[in-house]
């Protein structure tokens, strides 16, 4: 815990977010998981006034793999590298349940009234999106794992993330690969949306044996405004993959409507996530841990 974080917990102003672990967007409030404390930042959507709610009772490190608030009065997070689900009381922040998962997972997000868990996959054509039912994990979408030439490539090719959705759909994407957002609807059906990319193939592709250079990493976050409009935040920009020295990341957001890119904004610094969005403004978490509203000119 750093000094700023301690200040925030003591009731002072919220300091920069430490280790961003995921977010949830409600009608009036954004909740943001900081796994380094651990705590929830509770941000008023209108004013960006922030309070910090500590999470207590975690006896294993929380994973920065997302969070879910499925409406059962608890906040779900993953812990111990995806082995466990912890549930914390929304009211008090105290842990109310620790559950070992039947299989380790790499992510978690709110899918309306349930928590969606993202499986870790070593083989192609296996279901990726699961939900807990009667002590088992059951798939709820045909979204499936992809193939790749080697084990390391398979692990990279099947890194999956999901962003903020609407009543109708949740945007998900594979971290490595084509610039494409997959809109998952309430019955799990997927609709792909092509989005702009600033990522270029690495010049070492086909030469280097480092598995990461076989891919590009175009998308860092996505925020669906309605059925047609989605903001995306870039991940890799240029030809250096995120692991390479000098990599440029998270410097542009683009509004895509239907099949068209309507607007692209350059951000003043590297961004980590889109916390809120309309067509006229965005609330952005920057890589330095600050939260700022960006107005669309």
């Amino acid at each position, binding site marked *: 815990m750093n000094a700023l974080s301690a200040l925030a917990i003591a009731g002072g102003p919220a300091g920069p977010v430490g280790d961003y672990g995921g977010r949830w967007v409600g009608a009036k409030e954004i909740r943001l998981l900081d796994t380094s404390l651990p705590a929830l930042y509770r941000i008023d959507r209108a004013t960006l006034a922030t309070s910090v709610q500590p999470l207590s009772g975690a006896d294993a490190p929380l*994973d*920065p*793999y997302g969070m879910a608030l499925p409406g059962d009065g608890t906040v779900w997070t993953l812990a111990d*590298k*995806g*082995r466990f689900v912890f549930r914390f009381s929304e009211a008090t922040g105290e842990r109310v349940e620790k559950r070992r998962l*039947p*299989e*380790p997972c*790499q*992510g978690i997000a709110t899918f309306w009234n349930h928590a969606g868990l993202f499986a*870790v996959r*070593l083989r192609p054509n296996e279901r990726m999106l699961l939900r807990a039912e009667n002590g088992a994990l059951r798939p709820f979408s045909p979204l499936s794992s992809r193939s790749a030439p*080697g*084990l*390391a490539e398979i*692990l*990279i090719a099947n*890194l999956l*993330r999901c962003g903020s959705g609407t009543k109708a759909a949740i945007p998900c994407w594979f*971290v*490595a690969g084509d610039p494409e957002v997959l809109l998952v609807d309430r019955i799990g059906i997927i609709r792909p949306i092509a989005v702009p990319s600033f990522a270029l193939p690495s010049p*070492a592709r086909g030469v*280097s*044996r*480092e*598995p*990461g*250079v076989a891919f590009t*990493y175009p998308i*860092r976050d996505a925020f669906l405004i309605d059925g047609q409009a989605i903001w995306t935040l870039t*991940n890799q920009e240029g030809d250096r*993959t*995120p*692991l*390479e*020295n000098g990599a440029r990341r998270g410097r542009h957001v683009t509004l895509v409507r239907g099949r068209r890119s309507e607007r692209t904004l350059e951000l003043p610094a590297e961004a980590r996530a889109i916390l809120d969005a309309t067509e006229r403004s965005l609330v952005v978490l920057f890589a330095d841990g600050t939260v700022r509203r960006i107005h669309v000119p």
Partner: protein
Amino acid sequence: MTLTRFASARLLVPTLAVTAGLAAAAPAQGAGCIQFYAECLVRASDLDTWWQRSAAGIDCYLDTVACLRRAYT
């Protein structure tokens, strides 16, 4: 342990040599997670029993997923 975990362990152990070779040939700047994975599996392979090796292998694998997620997302 579930069937899924068994399957993971069975896949991991035979890939040891391949992954170690792959990481050894990789450039230093981008190979952090995979290099770690290879070294972790080498350490796991030195353990005494099949159960210990399998459990340690799964730890290596989940550590690597965590490393990759942190690096690329």
